[in-house]
């Protein structure tokens, strides 16, 4: 369950634009707009419940319409990730980022895995 949360999608660069992806599957360089923040992945696995995780994400500014750019990722299993959210920088783990859906505007560094 965790592995699939972490392994980024193998998406070629060409068709990245306009694609809808989970924030957990993005790579540094990906940028776009948040279109949906759900409460559905891995119930009971976040220690706080899905609704609570969703509210925390919202409170940190992961809200529909916010502009987002993935800046950095950790050395081990590319986790956690650091994103620019409007003019803030926020770090989060990929497992907590699954329910944030991003409409990619561009994906210059998106490579075949």
């Amino acid at each position, binding site marked *: 369950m965790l592995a699939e949360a972490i392994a980024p999608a193998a998406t070629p660069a060409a068709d990245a634009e306009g694609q809808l992806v989970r924030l957990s599957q993005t790579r540094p360089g990906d940028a776009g707009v948040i279109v949906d923040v759900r409460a559905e992945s891995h119930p009971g696995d*976040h220690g706080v419940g899905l609704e609570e995780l969703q509210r925390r994400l919202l409170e940190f500014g992961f*809200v529909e319409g916010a502009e987002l750019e993935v800046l950095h990722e*950790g050395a081990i299993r590319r986790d*956690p990730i650091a994103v620019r959210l409007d003019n803030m*920088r*926020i*770090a*989060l*783990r990929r497992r907590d980022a699954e329910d944030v859906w991003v409409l990619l505007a561009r994906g210059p560094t998106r490579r075949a895995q």
Partner: protein
Amino acid sequence: MSETLTRPARVALVGNPNSGKTALFNALTGSRQKVANYAGVTVERKEGHLTTAGGRAISVLDLPGTYSLRARSPDEAVTRDAVLGKLAGEQAPDVLVAVADATNLRLVLRLILELKAVGRPMVLALNMFDIAQRQGLRIDLEGLQRELGCPIVTTVATRRRGIAELVAEVDTLARTDMAGGQNRWREPTAAEIREAHREAQRLLKAYVRPPERPDTFTGKIDGVLLHPVGGLAILLGLLFVMFQAVFSWATPPADAIEAAFGALGGLAADNLPDGWLQSFLVDGLIAGLGAVMVFLPQILVLFFFIILLEDFGYMARAAFLMDRIMGGAGLHGRAFIPLLSSFACAIPGIMATRVIDNKRDRLTTILVAPLMTCSARIPVYTLIIAAFIPNQTVGGFLNLQGLVMFGLYAAGIFSALLVSFLTRRIFWRGAVEPFLMELPTYKVPSAESVFRNLLLRARIFMSRAGRIILPLNIIVWFLSVFPAPPPGATAPAIDYSLAGRLGHALAPLLAPIGFNWQMTVALIPGFAAREVAVAALGTVYAVGNAEADPGALATTLSQHWSLATALSFLAWYVFAPQCVSTLGVVKRETNSWLWPAVMFVYMTSAAYLASFIVYRVAVALGGG
């Protein structure tokens, strides 16, 4: 009316973390600050006082930073309850001061909308306004003021700009509207949070023009400091420097403090008649105070680095880099610095766990911190290694003594990871809290704020730890000297004391792990601090001045102990909670006797088990 004019007005500072709230608090109250704990919780309560130009007294409460009134950590619960006036032992604030980083308004605007629902008079302090101006960020203060329905003051807390204006606004509000309005706040649902964001977004669009010259400094630094490989290398380098500094900078003052207390003890001994009073003053009170004070240099050096890195904005980056590495063992990224600090001494390490906001993560870190090999174990390790491990080269270039020392450090680290892993699996199954953390923009730390914070840490340590460590040390002293030996006694005095009797009584229990009664007796005063065991062994084996001349004691020990016993003793010291000060600080930091009790039981069990295995294996291999 008369009451409102005579009692001080109560003001509470609320805002996002990293909004410069504490800097504003310092600018408002200067040195008139008091730090304590809120009743029943371990959250720090910072209160300060100021007097307005008109002579009105105002008390200012610096509440923990939060993104929402919905509390997610004990700190945030304090903020919520204090704002709502529901905190036990606290009165509701008359005026709220919402503190905002003027360059980062989006999240705080949502918080301000929540605060408005509370219905108390409020002032918005747009802090770091100089940076906003430098970036060419334009804010329509008039418009925003009208929409929010509260006065706005621009401030630069680090340069004390706008402070007088802020105080004037607070004074006006406190005078006119002491009653406050109706509280309409309740926990927002996801839909309400979204709604508030839309409102905040609308306000931003209408009244804030984005910066012409946005900050690119932070992005550039992050490119280096958050690099998956380079960033980790820099972090390790930084830690190396920090670790070195804790040892090299802190040792001379620590030695000086030790010498000063030694001299003071000597002076007292020379001028007082022999007897209880002299022993109490010299070996109990003065030595006990010395035992507290001797930690101070290490704590100051360590916190100097921690405060500097925190103010610069690096700590969140360190947590980011270490999160996955620590996460494998069930530890939070932020546990890294406290655990590293524990190599110097578990006490500042445990104090530094305050940076971890999740309670479970913090408790796990506190529980494993004493397993890190602290500097007080070094005298014990050196003594035993010198006495029993031959000084020879193995494998061509490795020194055997050094190898054993390294093994002891590794055993500590490994067991800490194991314990946190097990804690996570057994006690807090599946409960991995979400990890969401702002990476603040980098800022040059102000010398004044670093100094003030350092002073604060020192004061907190002295008062809190002192209140626990000193009495515990006096108890250990009492056990070691009472009752006095009968006239004409031949054995060392400690043999006749309560500690001696306890040691004799416990000896059969520790015999299976190869300890003789002398060792058991020495363990008891050794609870005052690990290195005291060296002096205590010297006492029971009647080797004078063991601490100053460990060579003689090492020779004696090598004649009395088998190799298996020595190895067992080392294994004991890797795990045993041989330090009342640590247990005392755990009590202080968790505000309960439960966690020091858990720590004592698990560490003692682990020590016994490890010593048993080491002893039996060593005996089986012919080391008995």
